[in-house]
């Protein structure tokens, strides 16, 4: 049954050119003959379109079948999708619908279906496509003409659909433009619900556009080294911090023919961290800890830190005041007076002494051997690392950090490849389920 319908509809698609022409002819005829009747028909109420009121003689056979239900619109998309899902094909579908029937019968259903399909076609963030979808609504028909219509919810289904479309734009963070406004005014009038929605979006969106002081770019760098560089500078949030690529990812073939892939190691350290580390008491150990997650939009990366425990109070040395420090003015007042209570502006915050973080890094493989490489790289700038015991406190968290594409090419030469695979699993799974989800829901609806 399904395949039969597909066949039919495929045929329909090839016939689109011809059929639309015939539809247009019919439409012209219709308009000339009984335009008044048609309008009245549209006004007659929201419940009607469901009932398939279209006289059969105005529609050719293929169209009749497609317009029968919501399933038809879904199918229309599915059919095209079989070839390739792009913006062009999506537009084509919309075109087909528009040219099919001059009265745009079932346009609400079509728009709902289209909205749902947008992410699949990768056009969910395309303003032009949204405007095209809005264009599917017949113009001027739903504009209220008297105060009673204005008072009540005029054409609620259509208005709701318009609002839904704007809502989806909002969810994807797409700001409507002038064209959207013009369309909305043409379709629903100056004061309809969709117009209100539009106004609200236009009120809030510009205000929120730059509300994040640490914006994440839309397109994250693809290269794992670039991504690590970006993430590390983001965490460090210190303009003086220097990113060092300790090792670039590369693939070597050893003499025995074995393929060795070296993971990337990218570290970051600021001059003040270098200074702090130089003052570190060499008898106290340093810790390499991690991995800690960092979310960048829908991507999760992991990083490691080099830190120490907070200095115990008995070891803290306050720098003695040197009266011969400043040549020009006294650096301290020698007085018994303290700050007045009324001028005390500091908050009473419970002071928790946290240990200092000396450096951070990201790597393709969170193994002690790899992290050791980072530490030895750090030693160039921080000679003290040669004397301080460094402990690795690594969680057994996800070790594969750069997603599936990166891991596929990776062949570890170490002793535990099995373990690697196990670790990789949880990282891949969420991606798969994410993709899977829409498909299953589709199937259920079918």
């Amino acid at each position: 049954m399904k395949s039969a319908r597909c066949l039919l509809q495929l045929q329909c698609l090839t016939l689109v050119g011809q059929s639309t022409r015939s539809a247009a002819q019919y439409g012209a005829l219709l308009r000339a003959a009984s335009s008044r009747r048609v309008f009245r028909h549209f006004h007659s109420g929201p419940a009607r379109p469901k009932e398939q009121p279209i006289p059969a003689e105005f529609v050719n056979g293929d169209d009749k079948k497609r317009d029968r239900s919501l399933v038809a619109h879904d199918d229309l998309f599915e059919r095209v999708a079989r070839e390739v899902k792009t913006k062009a094909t999506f537009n084509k579908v919309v075109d087909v619908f528009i040219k099919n029937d001059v009265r745009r019968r079932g346009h609400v259903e079509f728009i709902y279906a289209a909205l749902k399909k947008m992410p699949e076609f990768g056009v969910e963030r395309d303003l032009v496509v949204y405007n095209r979808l809005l264009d599917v609504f017949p113009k001027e028909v739903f504009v209220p003409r008297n105060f009673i219509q204005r008072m009540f919810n005029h054409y609620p289904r259509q208005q709701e659909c318009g609002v839904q479309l704007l809502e989806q734009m909002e969810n994807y963070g797409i700001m409507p433009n002038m064209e959207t406004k013009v369309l909305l005014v043409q379709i629903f009038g100056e004061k309809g619900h969709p117009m209100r929605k539009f106004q609200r979006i236009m009120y809030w969106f510009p205000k929120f556009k730059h509300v994040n002081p640490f914006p994440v770019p839309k397109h994250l760098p693809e290269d794992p080294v670039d991504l690590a560089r970006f993430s590390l500078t983001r965490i460090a949030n210190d303009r003086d911090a220097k990113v060092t690529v300790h090792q670039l990812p590369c693939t070597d073939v050893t003499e025995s023919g074995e393929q060795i892939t070296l993971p990337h190691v990218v570290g970051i350290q600021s001059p003040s961290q270098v200074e702090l580390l130089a003052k570190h008491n060499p008898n106290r150990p340093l810790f390499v800890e991690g991995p800690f997650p960092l979310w960048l939009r829908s991507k999760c990366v992991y990083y490691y830190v080099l830190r120490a425990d907070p200095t115990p109070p008995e070891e803290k040395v306050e720098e003695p005041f040197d009266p011969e420090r400043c040549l020009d003015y006294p650096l301290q007042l020698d007085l018994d007076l303290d700050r007045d209570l009324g001028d005390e502006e500091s908050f009473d915050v419970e002071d928790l002494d946290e240990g200092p973080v000396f450096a951070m890094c990201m790597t393709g493989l969170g193994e002690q051997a790899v992290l050791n490489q980072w530490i030895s790289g750090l030693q160039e700038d921080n000679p003290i690392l040669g004397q301080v015991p460094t402990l690795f406190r690594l969680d057994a968290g996800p070790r594969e950090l750069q997603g599936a594409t990166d891991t596929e090419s990776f062949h570890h030469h170490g002793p535990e490849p099995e373990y690697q695979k196990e670790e990789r699993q949880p990282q891949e799974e969420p991606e798969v389920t994410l993709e899977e989800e829409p498909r299953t829901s589709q199937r259920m609806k079918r």
Partner: protein
Amino acid sequence: MMNVNRYVLSRSLHFGQRLVSRSTRRAATDAERLQQRRSIRTQSRNLAYAKDLFLGQVNKAEVFPYPEIGNEEVEEINQLVAPVEKFFSEEVDSAKIDREAKIPEETLNGLKELGLFGIMVPEEYGGLGLSNTVYARLAEITSLDGSIAVTLAAHQAIGLKGILIAGNEAQKQKYLPKLASGEHIAAFCLTEPGSGSDAASITTRATLSEDGKHYLINGSKFWISNGDMADVMTVFARTEVVVDGVKKDKISAFIVERDKLGIRGRLAFSACEVSFDNVPVPVENVIGEVGGGFKVAMNILNSGRFSMGSSSAGMIKKLIELTSEYAATRKQFNKSLGEFGMIQEKFALMSINAFVMESMAYLTAGMMDRPGLPDCSLEAAMVKVFSSEGGWICTSEALQILGGLGYTKNYPYERYVRDCRILPIFEGTNEILRMYIALTGMQYAGKVLTGKIKEMKKGNIGLALGMVGKKLRASFGSSADLGLTGKDGVVHPSLAQSAKKFEQNVDLFGSTVESLLYRYGKTLVDEQLILKRVADVLINLYAMTAVLSRSSRSISIGLRNHDHEVLLTNTFCSDAFFKNNYWMTQLQKHSPENNDANIKKIAREVLENRAYVCSHPLERTF
């Protein structure tokens, strides 16, 4: 051109020759030389005019009457000034020096012949042995050429000053005569590429050689005026000193001779880098004690900044001459330029500034020339801050009068503006000096205040009652009377109104300082914006004192045009009065005039961003 350097003027070599009449000069100079040597080490301050202002008191005996010089010295000045003026107007081609960035040999020789390289070196070492007051007078003329002023100042105000104030007799005998004659030129090497006021960041190091006869100096110094032509240098370096059995790094001062080392003069003129690579310096060339360099440096730097007052005044007076000539002859719309109000304002500004600077500079110089070597570093710093900023404003206003012409190199104005721009920077930046001014006074007032509190805690009811009474009186709005006018008054009655304003300001200043001390205590050190206002008020108060004192004297002895002085004094005093009131209002708690919190926030956000923060006005969000 006037490259960064610190120039400080000689502390004092002479008595104030004004009030004391002397039969022979020579006898007196011998006596005071002895006295000078002794008092270098005791930094006692028996003169506390500016500090007392912090307590709301006017120590009028210190500043009234305005210091005078004796008739002999007036003659001496006239004899000296005339040839120097002639030399500067006829033989010095400032435009050429500016262009070539080098003082010609014959000009230097001329300066040497006039004795300008040893103005304050005592006569027994071959100098002119003149007082601070005369030095200030000569600075008025030498300042007409920025490069020469810097060269002279770097030579004698700081270069040889170390030897003069802290050197031993042998060092003086050995070096001073040649320095005073200008045969040798001195330089002062303190600043390093990474070290300004912060002594802890000095990296030049002097290590004792194995035989214990030499120090080996390593390191490099930066921004050294005269560095390219200096023969004798005062160099500050770290040395290892054992204090209480603990080895410590302390700064010591050394005399280094040029022919013993390889100095690379990097910049062509005045300022250059001087680097030391294992330069041997004999042990006997240490100035003062080993490890005592910090005190020496501080004394040199603190002792004289006052001469900038007279230098700037000299410059502005010259500019007034030049620009008024232009304003009187140039016509626009059938009116001469001088008839326009906005041009008139500029001339008034320049005269007032020159007048105030002059008054402050000679008041301070007179104080310094008093017997007993008073510590006038606070006053000197105030003179420096006021005159460097006033000089900058006045030179740029003078240029403005000429409009586009002033901007061209055909006229000297742009050179003056350029030269003046360095004044707020060298000799200790004005920011640092404001800190010095405010903190020194605050420390003094704080000590007095805590002393009082202790007394009261001990149960001294009289003192407590007295303070309460003072508060009450102030709250009932009784006007302050510090005794400048009226019976026993020291200010001439025609200046009574200005004197009243001054008294009112001083009174309010005293209570403001007190409340600031109560509010902030020792954390006041970190409140730079408050300290800045405190310093500004104090500078204005000192300036008011100087003009009141000077004009009172002028009226009393009937100096020519003293009515103009009264006019200038009254104008300046009422202007300063309102400014002071405004600043002190800002210093009140929760004052709506005070924007400090916002200012700090703006700066913090800009610095976090390390750029201008705002979006461009043409940007859109939709």
